[in-house]
C-alpha cells in the first residue's frame, strides 16, 4: 500500500525530529510514503476560533490535493502525525460528510481554485498505520536493538484519540503501548496518558498551562518512567522545552527525556540517533542511553 504524508507546519519547525524519525522508521519498515505536494496549514485549532467555514476550506484543500496526487487510487490514505492536524483533517472530512450545504460551498470554492474533492481520503495517524496496517509482529521482527529494561510512559495527549478517532480507545488508548512492547521496552501504568498538556496555553498563559505540563512529568517520574513517549509535536514541545521554566516556577528539579515514539522505535530498529533528530532534544533521554549502553552497542 502507498501512503501520502501530510507533515503540517510543526513538523517542519519545532517538531522537526518527529518528521525525521518517523520517515526513517517508515523507510526501515519498507513503507512507501510520499509527501503531499504543496500542502497548506491544516487550519488548526486557533483558526477554528476565527472563521469556521474558511478553516474547513483550507483543510479541505489538502484533502483535494491528496486526491489529485493519488488520483488512480480507490482509497487514499493520508498519514497526519501531528495530533492537531490529524484531528482537524478528520473533523473536516466528517463535517463535509454531514453538512451538505457547507460541503457544496467548499466544493465550489475548491473548484474556483482548480481543485476537486470527492471524499476518497482516509485520515490516518501513524500509530494507527503502524499498529493496524504494519502490525506489532512486523515491527518486533525488525527490531535489532530491543530497549530491554527501558520504562516508557506513553503519553498520547488529547487530540490523537479525542474526540473523533476510532483506531484506539478514547479513555484507555493502547497503540503506543503496543509499540513500546514490540520494541522490547516496558510501559508504565499511569493515569495521565490522555491528560491535557496545556496545549497552546503553556505558551500563552503559562500560569495556567505550565502546571498542567509539570504535573504530567512529575507523575511520570514518580512512576519511575525513564522517558516519556509522545505522538504530538505540541505535547513534546510543552513537556520538553519548558522544563527549565517549570523548575523555576515550581522550585523543582524535573529532568526527564521527552521524545517521540518514533524516536524510540528508530533506536530499537538500529537507526543512528542523528538521523532520528535526537541531537535536537533539549533533554536527551539519558536513562535510555544508559540502559542501551549496557547492551552490546554503544550510542552517543
Amino acid at each position: 500500500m502507498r501512503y501520502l504524508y501530510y507533515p503540517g507546519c510543526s513538523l517542519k519547525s519545532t517538531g522537526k525530529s518527529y518528521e525525521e524519525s518517523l520517515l526513517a522508521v517508515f523507510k526501515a519498515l519498507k513503507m512507501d510514503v510520499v509527501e503531499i505536494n504543496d500542502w497548506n496549514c491544516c487550519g488548526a485549532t486557533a483558526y477554528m476560533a476565527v472563521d469556521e467555514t474558511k478553516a474547513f476550506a483550507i483543510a479541505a484543500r489538502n484533502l483535494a490535493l491528496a486526491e489529485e496526487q493519488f488520483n488512480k487510487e480507490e482509497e487514499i490514505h493520508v498519514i497526519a502525525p501531528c495530533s492537531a492536524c490529524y484531528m482537524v483533517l478528520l473533523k473536516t472530512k466528517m463535517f463535509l460528510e454531514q453538512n451538505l450545504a457547507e460541503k457544496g460551498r467548499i466544493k465550489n470554492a475548491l473548484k474556483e481554485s482548480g481543485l476537486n474533492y470527492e471524499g476518497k481520503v482516509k485520515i490516518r495517524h501513524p500509530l494507527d498505520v503502524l499498529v493496524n496496517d504494519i502490525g506489532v509482529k512486523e515491527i518486533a521482527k525488525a527490531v535489532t536493538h530491543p530497549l530491554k529494561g527501558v520504562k516508557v510512559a506513553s503519553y498520547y495527549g488529547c487530540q490523537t484519540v479525542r474526540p473523533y478517532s476510532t483506531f484506539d480507545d478514547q479513555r484507555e488508548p493502547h497503540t503506543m503501548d503496543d509499540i513500546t512492547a514490540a520494541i522490547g521496552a516496558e510501559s508504565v501504568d499511569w493515569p495521565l496518558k490522555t491528560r491535557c498538556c496545556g496545549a497552546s496555553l503553556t505558551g500563552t498563559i503559562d500560569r495556567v498551562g505550565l502546571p498542567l505540563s509539570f504535573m504530567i512529568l512529575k507523575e511520570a517520574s514518580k512512576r519511575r518512567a525513564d522517558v516519556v513517549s509522545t505522538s504530538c509535536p505540541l505535547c513534546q514541545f510543552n513537556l520538553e522545552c519548558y522544563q527549565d521554566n517549570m523548575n523555576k516556577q515550581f522550585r523543582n528539579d524535573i529532568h526527564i527525556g521527552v521524545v517521540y515514539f518514533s524516536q524510540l522505535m528508530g533506536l530499537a530498529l538500529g537507526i543512528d540517533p542523528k538521523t532520528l533528530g535526537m541531537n535536537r532534544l533539549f533533554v536527551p533521554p539519558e536513562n535510555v542511553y544508559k540502559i542501551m549502553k549496557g547492551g552490546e552497542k554503544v550510542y552517543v
Partner: protein
Amino acid sequence: MSNTNGNGTIKGITPRIGFYICHCGHNIAAMVDVEKVQKFVASLPGVVVSRDYKYMCSDPGQELVQKDIKELKLNRIVVASCSPLLHEHTFRRAVEKAGLNPFFFHMVNIRENVSWVTDNREQATAKANALARAAIQRVFFHKSLETKKVPINPDVLIVGGGIAGIHAALTIANAGKHVYLVEREPTIGGHMAMFDKTFPTLDCAACILTPKMSSVKNHPNITLWTYSEVEKVEGFVGNYKVNIKRKPRYVIEELCVGCMDCIDACIYKEAKYPDEFNQGLSKRKPIYIPFPQATPQVVLFDPETCIDFKSHRCKKTCIEACDRKAIDLKQVPEYKEINVGTVILATGFKTYDAEKSPQYGYKKFPNVFTSLEIERIVNASGPTNGEVLTKEGNIPKSVGIIHCVGSRDEKAHKWCSRVCCMYSLKLAHLIKEHTGAEVYNFYIDMRTPGKGYEEFYDKLMNEGVHFVRGRVAEVTDWALIPEEEHKLTIRVEDTLIGVVRRIPVDMVVLAVGMEPREDAQDIRRMFNISCSTEGFFLERHPKLAPVSTFTDGIFIAGGCQGPRDIPDSVAQAGAAAAEALSLISAGSIELEPNTASIIESFCSGCKSCIPLCPYSAISFNEGTKKAVINEALCKGCGTCVAACPSGSIIQNLFEDEQIFSEIDGLLKFAGIELEEMEVVNA
C-alpha cells in the same frame, strides 16, 4: 372501478355504510381536517351517513353509531380513529349490540398512522381521506362471521423465581390454580435474596423473603423446577404447550435434605472457585449450595470444576458421605412437556457491567466495588460476615458512592434506573453503621419518589452523610497532594457550589444501573412478545395495560419490564396474577375468526401448504386427496394463503376481493386504477 354500480349494489346486496371520524380531542383534529374528511366520505358510493364526533369511543359516540344502525338501516360501519389495538373491540361490541354482525365493522387508524406522525396538516388530511376511502371500499366485501370460543387451560407457567415470580406464583396457587415455576438458577430468590436490608424501611431482606420462598417450595399447587429453562413454546392463549429442560444437578432432588455432609467430605479441603452468589468475593467447592437459605435446599455439582468430571479419577468421598444415596454423577438432563393456559414472565434484570465505564476504575483498582458486591459484603451471611473492609483488610475511613453508573448516559443507557438513588442511600446508611466512615454520595439528581422515600433521604442527611451534587468524572490513583497518596481520588464538580473538588477515599461503590438480561431477546422471540427499544419487555399499554403484552395470555412482571424496586415488582406480580386468574375464571376465550379454509374444488392436492404452516394446522385427507385446515389450530397467519399455487385457500377478513378493493381505494389518490379484478367477478 366497476365492482360497484352507481348505487353501490354488489352481488345483490346494497351496502348502507355509516362512516364516523373521531377528533380524539385535539389528537386527531389538530392535524387532520376532520370535517373535510367527513364531507369527502359522504360523497362516496354506498355511504349513507358520514359524521365527525369529538370522542367516538365515549358512550355517546357509541350510541350515535347504534342509533344510526337502527334508524338508517346501516349494514356496514367504518370508524376512523385510533389504533384497532385500543378500540376495535369497543366498537365491535357496540355494533353487535345494535344487532349487526360485528365483522361488518372496520376501523381506520388515523391517529398513530396519521396525525401523530406528521406536522403537515394538508398531507395528513389527504392521507386520512385515502385511508377512509380504502376502508369504505373494503367493507363492501365484509361478511358475517362467527367467533369461536376455546377453553382456557387453568394451569399457569411462571418463568423466573425472583420476588416478582414468587409473589405471582403464591397469589395464583392460593387461588387454587396450579402453577409451574421455572427458575434458571439452582435457587429461587433472584436479586432480593442477595440483599441485607431493603429500603426504605430497612427491614431484613431474608426475614421477609425466606418465608415466601419456603411457601413456594411447600405449596401443593406449585410445581417448582429450579435449575431449569424453557426451551420451546407452542400454541396460543388458553392452550400453550411448553417444553422445559431440567439441567442435571448430579444430585437427586427428592433424596437430598441439604445436610451438606457431602460438601464437608469433598476432597477439596479449601473452597477454591469463585462463588457466583457472592459475586466472586468468596470461594466455593465443586459441590455447593448457593447460600444457606437456598430453596430448594439441595446441593449441586459444578461439572466444570469437579475433578471426577474431568478425569474420572476422584475418590468420590462426597458419595460415600451421603447416607441418603442422593448423589448421581450419571444424571442426564430431564425434559418436561407441560400444557398451560397463561404465562407470566418474571425474568428480572441484570446490573450494568461497570467495566464498561473505565473512568471509574472497576477491576483496575481493587477497592472499587459494585453496589451488588457491597450488598453481599454488608450482609451478615456474606463473604465477610458483614464486615466492611478494604481489600487490604482495613476498615475504610471514607467511602464514595457514585450514582448513575451506566444510567442517564448516552454511552451506556439513556434511562434512569429508578432504584439506584434509594439503594445508594440504603448502602450509605449501612456502610456508615458498619464502619463509622465518612460517606459521600455523588448524585446528579436525587430521585426519591415513593412512600417514605423522601423521609429516608432526610434521615440520611441527618446522619451526616455528605451529599455532593455532581457526576463524578474520574476515580484515579493520581495523587496531587500527600493526603491523596495511597487513596482513590474522586474528581467531581460540586455543582451547587460551582467548584471542582478532589475527594480522597478508601473505597468506592458504583451504583450500577439496571439493564435487560442478556437473553431477553431470545425469551421475547420464544414467547412471541415485543421489547421496547432499550430491550425490556414491552407492555401492551404503558398506562392501561402495564402487565399485558401484545400476545394474549402472556403477562410480564417485575424487573424484566423495566427498572423497578421491590414494592413495584410485587404490585406488578399481583396484577399479572390477577390478569391470569381473570382469564382462567372466564373459562374460555373468543378467538378472532380470521382463520383460513380451503375451497375443496380448487385444491390440486399438491401439499405445498402443509409444511409451511407454523402451527401444524393443515393435514391431508388421503380419501379426497385434498388438504384440510383444522380451524381450532389455525392462528390466521396467512402463510398458506399466499403460498397456495392454485389460489384455493381463503382467509376470513383477508379475502382477495377485500384486500384488492382496499388497495384500489388507496391508489385512487395517486391516480391509479386497478384492473378490474377477476376475483370480483368470479
